[in-house]
Each structure stands twice: as structure tokens, then as C-alpha cells.
């Protein structure tokens, strides 16, 4: 592994860098991110430093609209939620193929349409199957 990193470090074997290719909006994005992070941190530090500190149980207890809290804040999700979440991930991610197609569907022409249709056919088949299997009913 050492050798590998040494190899990667050698600029000579990687003539091209992205410096000249990455356009400026990426940089502005990064500055924006940096600024937000810095502001947040600074504000928190200030309140921590300047604010007076007198603690008692009342204050340390969880604040819930003034009423005494009922039970632990962390409630376990039901299994059904997991199921839906899984299905969501699947069908959500599959759309990742639709986006690039949307960009170039004109150029791809009829054959592209057919292939996309086949893809969607299979996808929809899966959806219909689990629907009829009752995987989507909440209870």
C-alpha cells in the first residue's frame, strides 16, 4: 500500500489536474458552505462563553412545552416503516436512470425509448407485484 500511495503522489504519472477544469461556481459553493459553518460555530461559542450559568434540576430537565415530559423521546419505529423505507429507496434510486435519459432522449430516439420502456416495465412490474402482495398497506 505504501508503494501505491507513493505512486499516486507522483504528479509526473498524473499530468492532468482538475484545477484548470473545475469552474468557479464550485468554489463559490465551497465558500458559502465555509461561511455557514463558521457563523454557526461562532454563535454557539459566544453563547457558551457569555451566558451566565446557574443550574438546577428544573432547568436541566427536557423542555417540552412546559408540561412534564411523558416518556423517552426516542421511540422505536414500527417495522412497517422500515419496509416502506426500503421500497422507497429502491424506487427512488431507480429514477437515477431516468434523469440522464431525460437529458438525451431526443438523441437516443426510438430505440432508446424502447429500452427505457423495457426498464420501466420491469420496474413497474415489481411495484405492481408488491402492491398486490399488500406490502404497501400500512396495517
Amino acid at each position, binding site marked *: 500500500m505504501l508503494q501505491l500511495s507513493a505512486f499516486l503522489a507522483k504528479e509526473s504519472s498524473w499530468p492532468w489536474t482538475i484545477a484548470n477544469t473545475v469552474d468557479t461556481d464550485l468554489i463559490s459553493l465551497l465558500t458559502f458552505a465555509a461561511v455557514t459553518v463558521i457563523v454557526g460555530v461562532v454563535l454557539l461559542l459566544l453563547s457558551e462563553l457569555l451566558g451566565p450559568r446557574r443550574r438546577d434540576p428544573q432547568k436541566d430537565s427536557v423542555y417540552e412545552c412546559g408540561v412534564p415530559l411523558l416518556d423517552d423521546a426516542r421511540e422505536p419505529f414500527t417495522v412497517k416503516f422500515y419496509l416502506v423505507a*426500503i421500497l422507497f429507496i429502491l424506487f427512488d*434510486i431507480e429514477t437515477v436512470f431516468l434523469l440522464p435519459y431525460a437529458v438525451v432522449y431526443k438523441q437516443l430516439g426510438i430505440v432508446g425509448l424502447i429500452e427505457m420502456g423495457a426498464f420501466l416495465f420491469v420496474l413497474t412490474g415489481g411495484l405492481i407485484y408488491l402492491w398486490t402482495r399488500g406490502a404497501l398497506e400500512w396495517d
Partner: protein
Amino acid sequence: MFSLPALLYLSAFLFSVGTYGVLARRNILVVLMSLELMLNAVNIALVSFGRVHALTAFAGEHSGQIFTLMVLAVAAAEAAIGLSLLLVIWRRWNTIDLRQLCRLNG
């Protein structure tokens, strides 16, 4: 400003983090996340390679990015399977501790 090696280091770092997570953590959920991290770390390497090659070696060649899309889809499917297995384990074993699944051995 971002040299390719830097991006590769990033992906290598993330990959290592993922590997460490898989090896070290006992919580199945975390392990699944680490696995996803490994794949996505590689995705970074792929896109950065692809970007470079697209601009230098093979003009108009985007196989790296396409690869990444495929990997995303596959990773999603894998995550789905993993989560459903996690559910099964939870139902049967009442635990999500990796170290307790050692009935089968020898």
C-alpha cells in the same frame, strides 16, 4: 486546485473508513452503512477518473459516470436486501449485534 490524487486520497480515505466500520462495528445497521460508504468511496474515484479522462484522453467518454450511476442503483438494491435481512434477523434473533450470529460453525 483539486488534483486527481487529492480526490483519490479522499476516496481512499472514505473506503478505509468504510472498511474499518465493517470490521470494527458490532451494530448491523452501522455495518450496512459502512458497506454503502465503501461503494460510494469508489464512486468518487470513478467519477474523478471519468471526469479527467473525459476531458483529456477520450473526449466525450463518460463511462466513469455511467459506472457510478449503475453502482448507485446496485448499492440501493443491496441496501434494500441488507435492511430486509436486518429485519428478519431482528425478528428471529431479537438482536442486531453482529457478534451473536455465530450458531453455524465448524
